[in-house]
């Protein structure tokens, strides 16, 4: 099958597209009046919070909306041909051949019972009718192109034998098998670790250039879009609200939502005390409860009654730039360069005395080497290796690391769900490392509490919100009667700024951010002094993240809580923490104050991590450091330094020291320690990864 004839107009032209889903009760519009065009070789980003309709656009392009979805207006033209007028046969020719798609979950998008080679070879065999041998040669070539080691072995394995990063590379290879004209990427890196994400993004960019493919890049992460795309389109509640080049939208934004979005994400320079984030008030409207007029109206600072909610708002072209559009009536009246009206800056809280002291903590697990067949030998997994640090009153200590670094294990040992293998945990100079939770007294349990990551999982779905908080109060021995506890529960709801009426609601009636607030209220039920927050905002939308983060900070300030903030997101860590601890495969590789960790000298891993985090600021210059390979499994760590397999500085260390010995923890400055073999001089010569260009 040949490709459609050469064509030099836009590859993809979406014009006034509207998509609705139909249920028994009503029509639910998912996308309304959406237009975008992608030129050959161009990468266009589609940005928005979850539920804004960005993935629906992608499926609309693929004409794969399922039984209930329908295109109810507008056209999608691919190389000048209307996709909705094509027959099923024609569509099948285009799918995978001319338009390819890459999805969020690499594991789920590969067939578990089919060898990778077969899945790849299928594409040219269907579309070009090539022979098996040729298809195999093609697959081998593409797998080499996506920089996978040992391509032949890769082709001969099943998906579950590869790591997440490798699987995503295979999915990319599959998409590129037929050299498509358009590649749609739907949150391609969300399920991956930061350093792996950086490598995949780099790869996509390079291959896009090499194959001359146009891209439609869907993401919720503005920083990623900045790194990958030429133009972008911001979506809100089913509509495109602003469209333009990266420069137009990032630096000369013309829509209040875009502005609010940028103000609510932690960029370098934001600080929890002097320059706090500004959360977007209110909630994302549900698809069938959209307000009249401007969808963003109820949450907008510039809202004008009788005008913004009077009629449907069309897309306006920004004068002087015919490729920059905005869906705002007042965009010419708003002073876009006006300085942010500061939310009141806050006093920096005084850091008090040591509350928690961890000394040489070790946690090893014994795991059967082969779970199913139950082999005789056991393996020791070293989840935490010699952890030592202190945490003080009113301090935020961030624990940073990717999957398998041992941060969750540490949280479990601290909470008493597991006991330590060796070393000690001192809470107010009492040893608690060997005291499992059932032996701890109510006071100790209440003092050390936890906030969980997934808001949809943190509350028991079959108990009212109030009941769950009251239960925590009962267990912590707060209050003498039901009435007293109910009163205390209402106060806790006040503390997390939820209306008291929520006490009698079921968790399913709450939004993600509200659930997370209930989780925080529950953690503070026993007047917690140490709160472990395990990625408390990573599953929330950007605009909600800021509000929940601020709430945590505010409660901390008020209650002088010690906050152990576990996260992989360095932007937010930089914004709110006082000190940072970087972990890799169970080891603490770097520990210091926030400023020390974010500026050289770095541990090589910290350096790579900093470079990998996408930053949504055009004035930031980053060094590009791409780590080779994946994070080794904690079951099977490399000998010597845990990071030696991926370290770019390894050659600077004489001999094979890195492969033989675990480096000692060295003090490089007051309160700043690094676990590395690199010499003083080399560490000193390191350049800062993030530079803010002089304005």
């Amino acid at each position, binding site marked *: 099958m040949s490709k459609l004839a050469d064509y030099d107009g836009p590859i993809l032209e979406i014009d006034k597209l509207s998509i*609705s889903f*139909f249920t*028994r*009760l*009503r*029509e639910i519009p998912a996308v309304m009046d959406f237009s975008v065009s992608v030129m050959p070789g161009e990468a266009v980003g589609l940005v928005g919070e979850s539920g804004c309709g960005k993935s629906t656009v992608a499926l609309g392009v693929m004409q794969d909306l399922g039984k209930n979805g*329908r295109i*109810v207006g507008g056209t999608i033209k691919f190389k000048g041909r209307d996709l909705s007028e094509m027959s099923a046969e024609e569509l099948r020719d285009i799918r995978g051949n001319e338009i390819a798609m890459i999805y969020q979950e690499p594991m789920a998008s590969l067939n578990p019972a089919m060898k990778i080679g077969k899945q790849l070879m299928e594409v040219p065999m269907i579309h070009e009718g090539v022979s098996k041998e040729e298809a195999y040669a093609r697959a081998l070539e593409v797998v080499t192109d996506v920089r996978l080691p040992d391509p032949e072995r890769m082709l001969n394995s099943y998906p579950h034998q590869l790591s997440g990063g490798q699987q995503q590379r295979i999915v990319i290879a599959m998409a590129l098998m037929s050299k498509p004209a358009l590649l749609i990427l739907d949150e391609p890196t969300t399920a991956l670790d930061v350093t792996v994400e950086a490598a995949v993004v780099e790869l996509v960019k390079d291959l896009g250039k090499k194959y001359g493919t146009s891209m439609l890049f869907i993401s919720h992460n503005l920083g990623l879009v900045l790194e990958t795309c030429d133009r972008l389109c911001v979506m809100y509640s089913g509509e495109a609200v602003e469209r333009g080049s990266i420069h137009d939208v990032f630096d000369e934004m013309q829509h209040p939502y875009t502005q609010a979005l940028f103000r609510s994400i932690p960029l370098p320079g934001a600080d929890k005390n002097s320059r706090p984030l500004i959360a977007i008030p209110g909630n994302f409207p549900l698809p069938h409860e959209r307000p009249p007029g401007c969808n963003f109206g109820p949450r907008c600072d510039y809202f004008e009654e009788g005008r913004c909610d009077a009629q449907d708002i069309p897309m306006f072209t920004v004068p002087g730039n015919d490729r920059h559009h905005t869906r705002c009536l007042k965009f010419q009246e708003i002073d876009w360069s006006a300085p942010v009206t500061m939310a009141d800056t806050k006093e920096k809280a005084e850091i008090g005395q040591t509350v928690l002291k961890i000394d040489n903590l070790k946690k090893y697990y014994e795991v059967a080497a082969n779970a199913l067949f139950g082999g005789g030998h056991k393996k020791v997994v070293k989840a935490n290796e010699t952890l030592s640090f202190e945490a003080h009153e009113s301090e935020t200590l961030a624990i940073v690391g990717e999957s398998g670094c041992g941060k969750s294990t540490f949280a479990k040992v601290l*909470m*008493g*769900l597991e006991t330590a293998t060796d070393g000690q945990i001192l809470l107010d100079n009492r040893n608690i490392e060997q005291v499992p*939770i*059932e032996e*701890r007294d*109510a006071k100790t*349990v*209440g003092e050390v*509490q*936890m906030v*969980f*990551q*997934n808001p949809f*999982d*943190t*509350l*028991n*779905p*079959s*108990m009212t919100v109030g009941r769950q908080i009251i239960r*925590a109060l*009962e*267990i*912590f*021995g707060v209050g003498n009667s039901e009435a007293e506890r109910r009163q205390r529960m209402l106060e806790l709801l006040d503390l997390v700024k939820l209306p008291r009426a929520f006490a009698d609601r079921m968790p*399913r009636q709450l939004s993600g951010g509200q659930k997370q607030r209930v*989780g925080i209220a*529950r953690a503070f*039920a*026993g007047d917690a002094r140490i709160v472990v927050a395990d990625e408390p905002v990573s599953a929330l939308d950007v605009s909600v993240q800021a509000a929940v983060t601020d709430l945590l900070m505010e409660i901390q300030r008020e209650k002088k809580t010690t906050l152990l903030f576990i996260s992989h997101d360095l932007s937010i860590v930089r914004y709110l923490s006082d000190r940072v601890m970087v972990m890799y495969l169970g080891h603490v590789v770097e520990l210091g104050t926030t400023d020390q960790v974010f500026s050289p000298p770095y541990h090589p891993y910290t350096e790579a991590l900093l470079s990998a985090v996408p930053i949504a600021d055009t004035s930031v210059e980053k060094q590009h450091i791409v780590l080779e390979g994946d994070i080794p499994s904690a079951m099977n760590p490399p000998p010597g330094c845990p990071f030696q397999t991926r370290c770019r500085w390894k050659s600077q260390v004489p001999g094979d020291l890195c492969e033989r010995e675990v480096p000692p923890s060295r003090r490089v400055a007051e309160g700043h320690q690094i676990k590395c073999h690199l010499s003083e001089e080399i560490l000193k010569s390191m350049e800062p990864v993030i530079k803010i260009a002089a304005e």
Partner: protein
Amino acid sequence: MEPLSWTGSIAFLNPVLAIALAGLILSILAWILINIATTEGPVIVNPDGTLKSAAGPRGLAQTALRFTFLASVLLALAYIVLGVFLGSNAGIVGAISQQFLPVWVSLIIVFAMSVAFKRRLGLYGKLFDSPVGMIGFGLVMFWVFTGIFGALDLIVTHDPLVQVSGMKNKVPGTPLPNLDESQYAWYLLGGDNLARDVFSRMVKGAWIVVQIAPLATLFAFMVGITLGLPAGYYGGRLDTLLSFLANLILAFPVILLFYLLVTPEIIATGVPNYMAAVLFVFPIIFVGVLLNSRYYTRPNFRTPLLIGVLGVAIWLYLSLISTGGYVINTKDYAIWGLPTFMDLFDVPGGILVVFVSVVFVNSPTVFRIVRGLAMDIKTRDYVAAAQTRGEGPWYIMLWEILPNARGPLIVDFCLRIGYTTILLGTLGFFGLGLPPESPDWGSTINEGRKLLSIYLHPALPPALALLSLVLGLNLLADGLREESLKD
């Protein structure tokens, strides 16, 4: 008295019904064929935002199906309504439908109430959104009411155990010879080979099923839950041991177990009594742990509550397992139980052994389901949250895990009642446990099958009754599953 014909004075409806049914079958076939042959037609969007299939062969087939279905249902209703008023004038159908009057009234009340308040009734209310669930619920409730009213002697026409001479193997609608005043004039569904009334036996048989099946399933669930939760939650050695035991029972062919366990000789040894004594402890443990784990933080509320609830539970337990003052009473030895004056009820040995074996056979499967669910739910963050605030394991199992496993468990409960019904029928079919003259469906089918090639009427009514009850339970489970997934 004249013998009754099937439809009597409403026979004029028969050709109409025949046409409607033929139409229904034809349109079902046409509907399936057309749907396989043609692809989906264009869909029209209504102004109110709903979707409608366009006309064409598909739409036509669907309309035809709907009308013939409605016509058949209406006709069936007409038979029932006319029957209620005309009674035996409308033949056997009329007489039977008149006998079932209390059932019809109860069904109408239940459905009217449920549909009126369905938004406030949670999952049960949602059942009335699903046609499949409604049909299933209707069938199940029909037999439940039949069982209850049958036990109150409202529906039955004759004593199910009494033999009337001259009625042996007589066809449906045969009038009784030597009729006396108080007797019902006909054997509506004929007589069996011992000259007993088939209709009354079928109705009485419903009561046996309605009594035993749900209760036995409930006990099996108590046992399965009490053991399955810790196995799934703790894992490790406990899980290995319990799973091994469960697999042991599952590997035992059910029929062999029944043949070994449900015999008069085994009843005489007291083995079923031991098993009953063990199995029936589980509900008490379950309730006790449930309440204690929830209220132990408030001792002055918990202690009286536990004393009250457990006191009653233990009394019931002792009443259940002791008969005539003994828990076990064999030839060689006896174990004292509750004295007779405190004993609330006695369970005959035959029933007890049937009950115990059915619970015993069902609980390992429930155990496996609960264990799987517990293993899945224990990884949730709210379980971790409960652990980090120092909750005891039983609180977590019973109040954090169990309520969130209720969806699949309720569905399985319905299916399992159906399965238990089938098991009871199997026992009856082999003449195990229940007394031979018992009117339960399994025994009746067994007696009827011997002369099946000549007389159909004694075996078919109980067979169809069992089929419709189990089908109802299956449909009910399907409806529940569908509706609970919609959240």
